[in-house]
């Protein structure tokens, strides 16, 4: 279920689908533990998951429909990659020594790590990158669940705070991007205001480019000439 949520989170183009996937991951991840955490820690993790997702929803709120990049390789390929990583995680449970948690947690952790890699490395929209960051940290926590002794209540509380912080950070970034009307990252060239002009690469400038350059170089007849002193 966690892996399915993560696949949905990284491959959906609609922010709603991404958020639903993320919510499933955050809700299901603490339950892949043997034994289960007590009711209070579970309540804290559920509250943190809901709050983190809600914060991102608030960040996304505004006029106009937003569409993210989604996965470039499609959800079936993402699902296959996640499944392969899960098998590797399950088979290598303990990473060379006996793990104190269940192998399922390590399988889920490996799968989430594999799914987080592409958004983190190649993601060009802020929501996707935020989801990648969230999944990466969740993956690390799942592997910890598989290797280490069951988390104490205090640890669950700190992880809940981390989840809320992550949701808040993604929400803030998404809201900043939303202010510019799109989820795409404004990089060095665009400076956040205008889309980057596509530079000519291997091609010669077209007739239209040359014409535009000539018009820019020639002063307009209406424009007064700068006087020299």
């Amino acid at each position, binding site marked *: 279920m966690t892996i399915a949520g993560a696949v949905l989170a990284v491959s959906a183009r609609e922010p709603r689908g991404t958020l639903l996937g993320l919510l499933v991951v955050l809700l299901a991840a603490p339950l892949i533990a043997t034994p289960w955490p007590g009711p209070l820690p579970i309540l804290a993790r559920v509250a943190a998951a809901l709050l983190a997702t809600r914060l991102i929803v608030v960040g996304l709120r505004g006029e106009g429909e937003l569409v993210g990049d989604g996965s470039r390789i499609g959800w079936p390929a993402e699902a296959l990659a996640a499944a392969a990583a899960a098998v590797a995680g399950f088979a290598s449970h303990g990473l060379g*020594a006996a793990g104190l948690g269940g192998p399922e947690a390590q399988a889920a952790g490996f799968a989430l790590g594999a799914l987080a890699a592409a958004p983190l490395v190649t993601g060009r929209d802020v929501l996707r*990158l935020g989801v990648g960051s969230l999944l990466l940290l969740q993956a*690390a926590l799942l592997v910890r669940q598989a290797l*280490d002794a069951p988390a104490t209540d205090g*640890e669950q509380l700190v992880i809940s705070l981390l989840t809320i912080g992550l949701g808040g*950070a993604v929400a803030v970034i998404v809201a900043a991007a939303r202010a510019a009307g799109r989820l795409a990252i404004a990089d060095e060239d665009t400076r956040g*205001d205008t889309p980057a002009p596509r530079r000519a690469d291997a091609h010669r400038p077209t007739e239209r480019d040359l014409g535009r350059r000539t018009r820019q170089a020639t002063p307009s007849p209406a424009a007064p000439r700068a006087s020299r002193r």
Partner: protein
Amino acid sequence: MTVVPFLVVAVTAGTASLLMRAHRRWSTTIALAGLLAMAATASAIGATAIVEIGGSRLAGSDWLRLFAILGSVIGLFLVLVDVTAVHEPDAPGVIVLGLAAAVLALALTDPGVAIAAATAGGLAGVLVAAPVGAAARAAFVGTRELRALAVAGALAILATAWLARPLGDLITAPAVFGFAYLAFAVAVAVRFGAIPFHLWAARVADAAPGVALPLLMAWGPAAFAAVALVWIDQSVAPLLLPLSTERALIATIGAMSVVLGLVAAWIQDDLEHVVGYTIVSDAGFVVLGLAVLDPDIWEPTRTWLLMFVVTRSALAAWVVALHGGFGTRRLPSLAGWARRAPALGIALIAIAAASVGWPGLALWETRSSIATLSLPVPVAVLVTVAPLLGLAIYGRILATGLEQPGAIVRDGRGERPGWPVPWPSRPMVGLGGTERAFERVAHAGSAALDVLWTLPAAARRNRQPIASVAVVVLAALATSVAAGGLGVPAAARAVPIVEPGPGQPQPSSSAAPGETGSPEPEVSFEPIEGPSGSSLP
């Protein structure tokens, strides 16, 4: 007293300050009051006070107490400088919450949980790096910061998880420990923005408010590094493995950061970039400290952590004050700044002395110890003297300040104090001695009321002198810490011994860091020597 009151005050004040962000004055006032209360509660943290909450232990120590006190006091002055200079939104609340997370990370005895807390604290910084309502470029900067935090946090969590259990036969495979050690050290380098992981830090230095830079790039990562230092000493160092390749790699990152960070700071025109790259350079010594598996590295590295965060906070405050006074951070536009703000000039000289130091000064000796323990002799000498390049950086800024003032500086606020209204004249009209005595008393009362009513306007008019005084105080604090004052080296010597995992070697309760022995996992502290040589409790 335990660390809990400090955390409660900090979380309450930080959250309230952020919730009141629409009312900037209230938000700042709450943060200032919170920082005052945090300084008070921090001073009451007991060196051996332990509390268990939900199965996780929170332990105090002398170093933690000093970290919390210095953080609260410096945060207070930073917010004060910010209010009088540029008054950035959200920065006060983020400073309070970030400090709370850093102290929580230092107090937690389980490094795995401490890393989660330190990462959560770093996330607060995204709020000021990509403020709500800012342009899309802010989102780009925030994304970079978030990615760096996530990668560093994940690496550190994995490293601690791998070694926190019975390892069976794996304990004979040095590669496991090497990987985990390298992962954690690289995580620290990423958090500090050490070269070559500096790109996100450079963007953050560009976008984040100057007053929040020390928290984002120094205080938060310093807590992360302190956790790493404890974990390395408990989990890796006792095995006496050579790990020469990993150590060489970490030392290379550290040495590169020290030298190239200074060069990068030297060529910057934007003063916040200068702050950012000098932090990167200083952080190189922290990374160098992680490259040593000898217990002797404890004291200098933990001393250096406090020294560098204090000196860089003073420099950041200085930049914010200058920015507030003259409306720009670009050095070419600030010609003649020192002529209009001589107190800031004096503060810069003090900060330069505290940052660069000289042989014999505690700061210099600390850096020298770290370099000598982590690097071969010729490189160690080079890295030890590299901070002298800081003289060129500060000299360039000061030389610009001594030039003829440009238009921007002439139009700036300047430091000359003034009063917003002319003093009213009250001529004496009484004839007899008694009449004149009554009249004098009445005039004194009226004058006192005049002053009281005009105080808010006077504070607004004298914003620049107030900011300069705050920066001078911070510079004095930095000089004192650089000279080894406030008991920094002694506090650094008293290192808490964390709870080892089931697979880790058990340290002795009274052993110095790095030694092993006792089978019982417990939290204990090495006694430190007071000024008279007696052991403190």
